[in-house]
């Protein structure tokens, strides 16, 4: 089932193509962590996980969708949203243009709907390749619509973070406000007794992690993913000393009770399906309609 998942895509993946150019020979590439030379087709069959050290290579948002959803089930929504650049931030539009070119995305998120083992879900993914996957007004709007659509239809929603950039500085306070905005959508989803699954990939930090990245009924993370509130620079400025060796990784968060599972990429899809089945059948009517479902 996971084999050949790259081939399922119908549209060409511009992100993957763009990145492929960075690889010297194309057929072989070194593992980022252990430097082992890996045969690219083999690496892709292995879902871009190093067969030697288990390093999880980054995936583009489109690759994430292919990994998680049933083949050909994905329907993209809210594709063309664009920021209004509310702060007229210096050189911001240039940078956006660059990343649009590199990733083939309009902004840092891809969202839509599809099925997992036949169960319908809405899904949004932030792409670390686009300005560190940071959350601006567009990403916030997409996450919010993704959650709202699931709530309205009584579906589960899956939110995948590849957001190392947190809330995006260049849109200032309006980026910050995407934290409560997305949390509001998840509050409604929660009160409507619908499932939200959060998947944290490398990296997941800052304002994203302090909002929807922490609001799944179940939170999964890929091994080794950096998951934290403060980036290393901020932490350093704040005088953080002698952190544990695995500080700010998924494993650290897991040890401290913040994650349900550290889940190897190969197991993600089955785990998600298992959770969807747990939550899929409508709850019996007597248990519905909590005004407040706290913690």
């Amino acid at each position: 089932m996971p084999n050949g998942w790259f081939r399922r895509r119908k549209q060409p993946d511009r992100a993957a193509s763009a990145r492929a150019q960075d690889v010297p020979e194309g057929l072989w590439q070194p593992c980022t962590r252990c430097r082992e030379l890996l045969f690219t087709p083999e690496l892709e069959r292995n879902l871009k996980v190093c067969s030697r050290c288990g390093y999880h290579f980054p995936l583009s948002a489109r690759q994430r969708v292919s990994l998680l959803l049933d083949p050909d089930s994905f329907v993209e929504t809210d594709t063309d949203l664009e920021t209004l650049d509310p702060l007229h931030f210096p050189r911001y539009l240039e940078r956006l243009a660059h990343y649009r070119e590199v990733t083939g995305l309009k902004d840092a998120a891809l969202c839509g709907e599809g099925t997992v083992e036949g169960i319908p879900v809405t899904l949004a993914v932030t792409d670390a390749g686009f300005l560190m996957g940071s959350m601006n007004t567009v990403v916030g709007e997409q996450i919010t619509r993704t959650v709202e659509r699931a709530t309205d239809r009584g579906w589960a929603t899956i939110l995948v973070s590849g957001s190392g950039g947190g809330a995006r500085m260049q849109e200032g306070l309006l980026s910050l406000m995407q934290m409560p905005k997305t949390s509001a959508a998840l509050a409604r989803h929660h009160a409507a007794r619908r499932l939200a699954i959060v998947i944290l990939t490398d990296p997941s930090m800052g304002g994203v992690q302090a909002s929807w990245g922490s609001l799944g009924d179940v939170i999964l993370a890929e091994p080794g993913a950096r998951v934290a509130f403060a980036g290393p620079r901020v932490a350093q400025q704040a005088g953080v000393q002698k952190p544990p060796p695995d500080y700010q990784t998924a494993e650290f968060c897991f040890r401290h009770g913040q994650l349900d599972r550290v889940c190897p990429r190969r197991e993600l899809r089955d785990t998600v399906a298992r959770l969807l089945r747990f939550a899929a059948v409508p709850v019996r009517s007597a248990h519905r309609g909590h005004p407040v479902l706290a913690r």
Partner: protein
Amino acid sequence: MPENILEFEQPIAQLEAQIAEIKRLTAVEGVDRGEEIALLEAQVEQLRLKILGDLTAWDHTQIARHPKRPYALDFIRLMCDDFLELHGDRLAGDDGAMVGGIARIGEQQLVVTGQQKGRDIHERQRRNFGSARPEGYRKALRLMRLAEKFGRPVVCLVDTPAADCSVAAEEHGICEAIAHNMRDMFLLTVPIIVAVIGEGGSGGAIGIGVGDRILMLEHAIYSIIPPEGCAAILWKDPKRGPEAADQLRLTAQHALAFGVVDEIVPEPLGGAHRDVDATARALKDAVCRHLDELSAIPVEQLLRQRYERFRRLGPVLDPRAAGQAACDGRVDGDGAEPAR
């Protein structure tokens, strides 16, 4: 020259010192220099209006961080009666950077909570410089639930440079704490009024920043990142904070223009520290007025409006729903007009 004078305040302070000196001499020498004093006082008044009426974003930042600025407990004591501080998250700790308790304004019982900075170095350390820890956010939420249980409104006073990002904070889930607070504040069945009284520092602020009305003191700031941090990232030069402050649109008037806050509460000329009592009275009046309005709204409607209030923040260009977002006049922070 007295301490704690901000750079832009110095011309005023110099004149004020001059007047004080003349008055002192008058008393000592017994010579009537009333005319000279009157002239100087007119000058200082003009200077005040000129300088303080046209502050830069960086000036606002300095006022918001002024060491004599009233802090949360000052406002609580001045605005409320019968304050009883309650402590602890019932889980792991009691965070000095977040205070809260029950209080009364007139006949209205309520819960008030907020970040608290410290005056002297010892209190600052104990208060973690106003950077709340997970324990603080969880304490605040516990107190909000107490308010909800007894149908009392909640007032949150925001004043923090940022949430704590120490190893201990990561260990106890600072992300979870902030996110959880925001989510549950959208479900809280009693009115919530948030007032940004000093620094509205990013995630640290929004962790108690969800409400039905968001007020902001005139010289408070609300920003996604401290200007120095922004400058460090943009120009590798934290000293260019003033430029970054301007770029970040972090003043109350920008926040109002963005729709992030609903009302700016005026401060005395030069900042809240110039007249703490008057500032507290102004804030109290605003809080009472909004509480009155909110208490008349049925709870379902209250929660719907709270949702919609935040839902519309951050309009985007949506070609498939053309014109919609661009029509919203509040989009552009640069077009901001003073509220008063």
